[in-house]
């Protein structure tokens, strides 16, 4: 956990843009920042092309400001709207083929443990609901079965946003979308319950309506993945573009979902509980 990795090469000092300089000098490199410090440091995310009011963009920003060790974190992303954001992320990130993210993350994590046995390197998967629960479902669950020490974060906008609004397994029953005019015929997949019974030591279900809690849970999930085992964070990130709602109503949609399918739910395994107790990190 040092700032050395981000130090500017003196020869390039004059040539680097202001944004880069700000990131080097005032980025959240020491991992001591929380969501509550937002607005006082340079974020790891730059101007991105995601839609106005996109809650996926909001959660990406919150996650990036909650990393316990940003300089030694490797993000594995996947195809979908989020992949348009990763190009503007100031730390290592890998784009994997749609659905392959947990397999790629497994390889990255294992090689890093061999190459840097004395260092803590956090591997964090961030992908859409389609990537995580549809095409990548086998890769997701098998990484949990195998006990890979990675964090899986799902941006659940409850459909395929990037390709124009097809239903996904995570779409609630009955929901009509631009390219699903008849409405979803089967219920939303309960990946949270599956995570609990498939080897995850920590699983949490939450929304963008409480970003302070979101940040704290992400931090916890990454710390537990580092030392205990797989962890899973599922975030409801309403997509105003596909819901055909004004962007400013998106947070309310997230908040309302907390009364039903997105009631806050946190699972902590016995091993994770004792780890948190021993490290004095209960919150």
């Amino acid at each position, binding site marked *: 956990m040092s700032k050395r990795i981000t130090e500017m090469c003196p020869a390039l000092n004059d040539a680097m843009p202001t944004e880069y300089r700000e990131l080097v000098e005032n980025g959240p490199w020491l991992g001591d920042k929380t969501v509550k410090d937002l607005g006082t440091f340079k*974020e790891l995310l730059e*101007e991105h092309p995601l839609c106005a009011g996109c809650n996926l963009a909001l959660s990406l920003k919150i996650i990036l400001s909650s990393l316990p060790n940003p300089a030694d974190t490797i993000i594995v992303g996947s195809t979908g709207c989020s992949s348009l954001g990763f190009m503007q992320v100031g730390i290592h990130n890998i784009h994997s083929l749609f659905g392959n993210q947990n397999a790629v993350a497994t390889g990255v994590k294992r090689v890093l443990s061999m190459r840097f046995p004395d260092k803590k390197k956090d591997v964090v998967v961030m992908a859409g609901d389609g990537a995580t629960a549809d095409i990548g479902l086998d890769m997701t669950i098998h990484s949990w079965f195998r006990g890979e020490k990675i964090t899986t974060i799902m941006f659940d906008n409850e459909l395929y946003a990037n390709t124009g609004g097809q239903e996904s397994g995570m779409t609630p029953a009955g929901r009509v979308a631009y390219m699903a005019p008849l409405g979803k015929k089967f219920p939303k997949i309960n990946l949270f319950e599956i995570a609990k019974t498939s080897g995850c030591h920590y699983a949490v279900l939450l929304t963008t309506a409480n970003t302070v809690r979101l940040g704290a849970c992400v931090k916890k999930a990454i710390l537990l993945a580092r030392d205990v085992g797989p962890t899973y964070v599922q975030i409801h990130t309403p997509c105003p573009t596909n819901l055909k709602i004004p962007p400013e109503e998106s947070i309310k949609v997230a908040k309302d979902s907390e009364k039903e399918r997105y009631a806050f739910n946190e699972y902590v395994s016995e091993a994770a509980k004792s780890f948190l107790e021993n490290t004095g990190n209960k919150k």
Partner: protein
Amino acid sequence: MYFKAKVDKEKCNGCKICILSCPEPNAIKFDPSSKKIEIYESRCKACKICVVICPKQAIELEEK
């Protein structure tokens, strides 16, 4: 027509809820000395999330 968010510093009490809810990075900054927020126009997409979430009604959209 383009819009941007503008803060009325008289009304802002520095609670930072807008910063915690804005999907755009580095668009709203907090000034620790005045304990007020500042909005960076060029980074704002005028989504209005901060406008509806501010408990003091201190933010409005205005034409760029």
